[in-house]
């Protein structure tokens, strides 16, 4: 027995030593800023930059804005504080937003407005939100067009309520450009993603409301704001604007599906749409090339007093209840949107290259997402409404997951341009659409 102990005890000792030191490890990754300096980062842009989601601006969306995600990664390589004009924890629902309450019998998502814990301080003569009077690094202003940046009083009570709440009360007439220029004086890094609204308003109203900004105006204002942002030697990233006809707002309601629905009720029915002309409205048969907006889905099939047909249906142009024009983006209007998008993006890219800035080509990226989805750690995300995870309930703005994906793509572009080694974030840690 002693002999056994003599031989086995050292063996057992060796064994337990082996067990204790068994956990494998990797070398810690090295994160570097490269040639960029992230000491003070400011974000310039519109609703996408503000973290707008589900048809509103609210605290959760702000916290998950792509600039905030970027700033978190920048902090690993010397980035400083990043202040957002957050709605308070008691007024966390901000402007209010849409939430998913369920599905109709046919599986259509049903949404409702969130109306509690809002940050609304006035409703007349215009809606105003609770002010935010301290430092702001995220200058994203929902609704702003590039063509608005020089408008004096854009931050006044008669202007844009999201800009109003961060515009100093002492300088109510300060334009967005002036504000950006003032902040840029101390910024070392910036992101600029303006221009979406210069075409979006036209598109979402079916070509009826909102005008497309002139290309020369767009190029000039883009040039001026980039000049202001780089005047102090700051480096940065700019983003192109995506072709909005790829987003669920335009791709969820399909003419073919509406037609099938009507024909199931009566084989003679078809889909008709209203055309606004200079000499009054006319009606024509819808084609598969027509894009119907998400807002149109609530209208189609409803009854109209005095018209025997539900909205959208008809036997002929003369005997029909056409879908109102503001819910339809026809082929010509789509061409206008695409031509403007292309022209605006040329201006954005040319100016960025002139200044040696990183570029996130969101147009190319979101086109690819629309065509083939985007996989994040085993999850197949798509541009589908509700099911796709990337787009929120308004069909235009991303979910937190979508914003995380945007942040990652920007990090890739920044790393490539400035030789930095910023880590990506895990998009699956950010929510998609929550299902009841």
């Amino acid at each position: 027995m002693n002999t056994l102990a003599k031989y086995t005890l050292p063996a057992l000792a060796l064994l337990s030593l082996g067990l204790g030191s068994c956990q494998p490890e990797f070398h810690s990754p090295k994160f570097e800023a490269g040639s960029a300096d992230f000491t003070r980062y400011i974000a310039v842009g519109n609703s996408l930059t503000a973290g707008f989601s589900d048809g509103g601006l609210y605290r959760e969306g702000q916290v998950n804005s792509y600039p905030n995600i970027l700033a978190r990664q920048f902090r690993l390589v010397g980035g400083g504080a990043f202040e957002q004009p957050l709605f308070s924890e008691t007024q966390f629902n901000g402007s209010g937003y849409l939430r998913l309450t369920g599905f109709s019998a046919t599986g259509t998502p049903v949404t409702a407005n969130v109306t509690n814990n809002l940050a609304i301080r006035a409703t007349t003569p215009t809606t105003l939100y609770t002010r935010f009077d301290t430092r702001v690094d995220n200058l994203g202003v929902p609704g702003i067009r590039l063509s608005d940046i020089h408008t004096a009083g854009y931050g006044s009570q008669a202007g844009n309520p999201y800009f109003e709440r961060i515009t100093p009360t002492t300088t109510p007439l300060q334009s967005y450009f002036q504000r950006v220029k003032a902040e840029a004086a101390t910024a070392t890094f910036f992101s600029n993603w303006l221009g979406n609204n210069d075409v979006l308003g036209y598109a979402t109203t079916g070509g009826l409301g909102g005008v497309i900004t002139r290309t020369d105006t767009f190029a000039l204002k883009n040039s001026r704001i980039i000049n202001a942002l780089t005047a102090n030697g700051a480096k940065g990233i700019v983003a192109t604007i995506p072709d909005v006809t790829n987003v669920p707002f335009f791709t969820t309601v399909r003419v073919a599906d509406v037609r099938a629905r009507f024909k199931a009720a009566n084989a003679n029915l078809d889909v008709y749409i209203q055309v606004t002309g200079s000499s009054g409205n006319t009606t024509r048969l819808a084609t598969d090339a027509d894009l119907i907006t998400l807002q149109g889905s609530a209208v189609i099939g409803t009854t109209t007093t005095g018209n025997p047909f539900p909205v959208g249906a008809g036997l002929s142009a003369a005997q029909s209840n056409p879908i109102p024009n503001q819910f339809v983006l026809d082929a010509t209007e789509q061409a206008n949107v695409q031509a403007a998008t292309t022209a605006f993006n040329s201006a954005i890219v040319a100016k960025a290259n002139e200044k040696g800035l990183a570029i996130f080509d969101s147009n190319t990226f979101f086109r690819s997402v629309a065509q083939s989805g985007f996989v994040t750690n085993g999850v197949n995300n798509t541009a589908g409404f509700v099911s796709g995870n990337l787009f929120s309930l308004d069909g235009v703005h991303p979910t937190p997951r979508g914003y995380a994906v945007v942040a990652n793509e920007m990090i890739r572009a920044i790393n490539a341009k400035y030789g930095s080694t910023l880590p990506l974030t895990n998009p699956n840690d950010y929510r998609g659409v929550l299902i009841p």
Partner: protein
Amino acid sequence: MNLKNLLLAGGALLGATAAQAGGFQVTLAGQKNNGMGGVGTGLALDQASMFYNPGALAMVRERGVQIGVNATMARQVFRAEAAQYYNTDRQLDNTVTTPFNLYAGFGPQEGKWKAGIAVYTPFGSKLDYGYNWEGRFALTEIDLKSVFVQPTVSYAITDKLSVGAGLVVFALGSVNLQRDIPVQNNTNGQYGHIELDGKADQKLGFNAGVYFKPTDKLSVGVSYRSKIDATVKGGDVTFSNLPNSEVIASRFAASKFDVTIPLPATTNLGIGFMPSEKLTLGLDVNYTQWSAYKQLEFTFDQPVNGSNTSSSVRDYKDSFTFRVGGQYQVTDGLTVRAGGSYDLSPVKDGYVTPETPDANRIGGTVGLSYKFGEHFGVDLSTQFVSLQKRTQTQAELVANGNTDRVAGTYKTQIVIPGIGLNYTF
């Protein structure tokens, strides 16, 4: 001890292992062999020959009963692609599994034949990934178990040549796979979860071998164990944390699943050298026909995420394992052992999955036996298995159409202490 009792005893010990050898193979069938790098095909060491080479059993001098159990302790680290997080590499939740083996051999002491029964666990894997890891939508937990029971006969044609064969009964097998579903409910924002749990059908195969010992100093052996499919029919599907909406419920309605996972054939070639009475050296090459594992395909009675099947490409390749080991008899009672192995992964680049985070493996083993008197002995062994660091990128996954798994770097180390008791007569 009848077969039923044996199996019950086995079930209690069971737990398969964190895939101690390539793919989800487990080659821990004999405690002496475990100390010698896993060699055995060209040797006639003890009753474990029934696993390594049934042909060698007739040349095993003693009859006897032996039982062995091992504790497989795997430690793994994973880092997602692009070094995503600062200082938050994922570590596998520690699991300990206990693959075991049991042999009983009998037959006339000086006769030409021997017979026996073997119980062993040739395949298995158990991994438990931590909460919230990046690959949670591919896998959160796996527990794959198998127990083979093998009645065996062996016959010595001459005093130099013997043959043997066993009927392999795939007696106990089970599959448990769990993963998260990328659908979030609005109650607590949690992701859905699916668990697949089932028992495998009993199946038959065979294990056969030839052993040839031309001189006192040299022996060679060849053996072959056939492929057996682990087929689960009507396993249970359980969902949790899913949203309550009817739209979701109709997409996730399954309650039963079927799956077939091949447990591939292996061909083994071994050589033994006995330069002196006290020293035995062995050299083994194993060839496992992993190419049988093309895909992991589940069929469901009702939809899972809108589809009644779910298929994930594996496309394993056939692979070799090389082993070398030896033992030296120090005193009448004490024998010491050492060995090593190099195990080529059957998993191709860009095909690594969390359920088998495989890579080429280097193993080192030590072992010893001590005999108490004429009949009773104890065998101790320890294996250290190191899986080489293996990285796969999202680009590789996209190129191979394997985006159902996660890009990143895996590294695994396994320590397997084992103990065996034997009684010979």
